[in-house]
């Protein structure tokens, strides 16, 4: 029993090592799939943040805007990712954008509330003293409220990055999807479990490393935060 399990682990590891990269063909192997996974996930998160920041600032500034925007984002989140990937195909074909556009839309469901809550949790006495010292609304937003919101925004980025890295794999169903390709093409279609396990492990490892990088970024960006 234990020997069987050990054999199985050895087989999975062996497959991973031998298929890590192919010196002759840079397009084959795990490494190019891993970098594709990173590219799709990181671009989606960055684009999501680039959208969530201005929209979140606007929602914090004009409060009636927030409920409808949040509802819209939540409804979008309920659309199955497979459906969105398929629906993107006629417009973006097999380019990265087929995966990136839906994935960055999905990140909004986490990032937007974090940006808005981060801005809202700025203590009232801090905001009051900014007003009393002669900060105008815009300067207050940029110089006081946004920096104070950074820890909450990074907390949102951490959740969003784990979710996105996991979801990239689904894009394999439309021929993209980084490590998802390993799971689907090398594993499932060939009825072979080793690539599936390797794909899962690498995905989780990527999420772990990304999370650690974000924690590091937070330490560097917000030395002032209570820990």
């Amino acid at each position, binding site marked *: 029993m234990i020997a069987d399990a050990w054999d199985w682990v050895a087989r999975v590891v062996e497959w991973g090592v031998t298929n890590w990269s192919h010196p002759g063909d840079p397009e084959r192997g795990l490494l190019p799939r891993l970098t594709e996974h990173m590219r799709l996930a990181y671009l989606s998160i960055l684009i999501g943040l680039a959208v969530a920041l201005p929209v979140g600032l606007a929602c914090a500034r004009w409060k009636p805007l927030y409920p409808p925007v949040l509802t819209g984002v939540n409804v979008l989140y309920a659309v199955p990712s497979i459906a969105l990937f398929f629906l993107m195909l006629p417009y973006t074909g097999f380019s990265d954008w087929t995966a990136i556009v839906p994935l960055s839309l999905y990140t909004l469901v986490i990032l937007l509330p974090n940006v808005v809550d981060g801005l809202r949790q700025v*203590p009232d*006495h*801090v905001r*009051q*003293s*900014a*007003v*009393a*010292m*002669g*900060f*105008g609304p815009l300067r207050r937003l940029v110089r*006081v409220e946004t*920096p*104070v919101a*950074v820890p909450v925004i990074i907390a949102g980025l951490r959740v969003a990055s784990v979710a996105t890295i996991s979801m990239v794999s689904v894009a394999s169903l439309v021929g993209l999807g980084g490590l998802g390709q390993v799971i689907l093409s090398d594993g499932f279609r060939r009825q072979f479990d080793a690539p599936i396990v390797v794909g899962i492990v690498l995905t989780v490892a990527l999420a772990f490393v990304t999370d650690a990088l974000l924690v590091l970024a937070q330490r560097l960006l*917000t*030395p*002032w*935060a*209570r820990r």
Partner: protein
Amino acid sequence: MITFEGAAKLYPDGTVAVDHLDMTVETGQTTVFVGPSGSGKTTSLRMINRMVEPTGGAVLIDGEDVRQRDPAVLRRSIGYVIQQAGLFPHRTVRDNIATVPLLLGWRRARARARAEELMELVGLEPSQARRYPHQLSGGQQQRVGVARALAADPPILLMDEPFSAVDPVVRASLQDELLRLQRELHKTIVFVTHDIDEAVRLGDRIAVFRPGGTLAQYDSPERLLAEPSDSFVESFVGYDRGVRRLSFFPASGLSPRQDVVFDEGTSAGAAADALGGEPWALVVTGDRMPLGWASATRLAGADTPLGALELVPYGHTFAVDTDSLRAALDAAVLSPAGRAVGVDADGRVVGVVSQDDLGTALWSVTE
């Protein structure tokens, strides 16, 4: 000079926060707004820097309506300190203090130098310059708050219950510090509190607000305690106002008695004879430092020197030249002999004041 001319604040739901306030805050003095919650004291304060806009009347600074001025520019010329200090969590102590100078366009080096200067003024260590607010104690945060408010040297300082969130010991030291600063700086300070003791301690003038946002009395602390204008003010200042008022009368008006003070070398019998009918003798050293009380009943017939007897501790003393009648009364009440020991600046005994002597002095004060 800050003038309220019929200033009023009526909220749309019908709440009257401030009802037709007429008063003048003198330049270079500390004026305290005191009152229970809902009396409009904070609202009135916030009308000065336009954090609240009056719905009627006007607020003038040196004759100019504050509404004539751009709010942001106005506020940069008025220091503001609030309860939780309102420090920016993402900026160091030094950069917090430099906030307004930087807003006013000072060069960074100059603003930082000014911040360091102010840290020294409010009693903060230079090593704290690079700390962040959450690394400081509540009392230290309040000091930073005061320093930040003073950074651009504004003529006016608004303080909204700045010390009410810190513990009593720290509060007392912050109050002392503020009194010391004000003796140096002569700012026009408007200070809001709900604590009448704090008001009496800090204020040159005290405005008592009553619920509904009207002014009940506007007077010097001494007169407020002596002559409350009505029953509301009387109950607000408290039933021990008579005793508290004694803080305003110097103990130097008392005549401490010398005839019950004896050197430790005096023999007990001689002291007993000299005491006459007095029940207690105060024993002092050769250079008149107090040692303790000796009861007359233990002295009669004894031949030992006073210094060899077992003495009753002399308790608290009061400084004849600098303390108030309140301190003298306090020392007398706490003394096991019922008598207060008056000392000079070096702690040498000047004389003894009995409760009877104090009674006579109090009687003349209340006349």
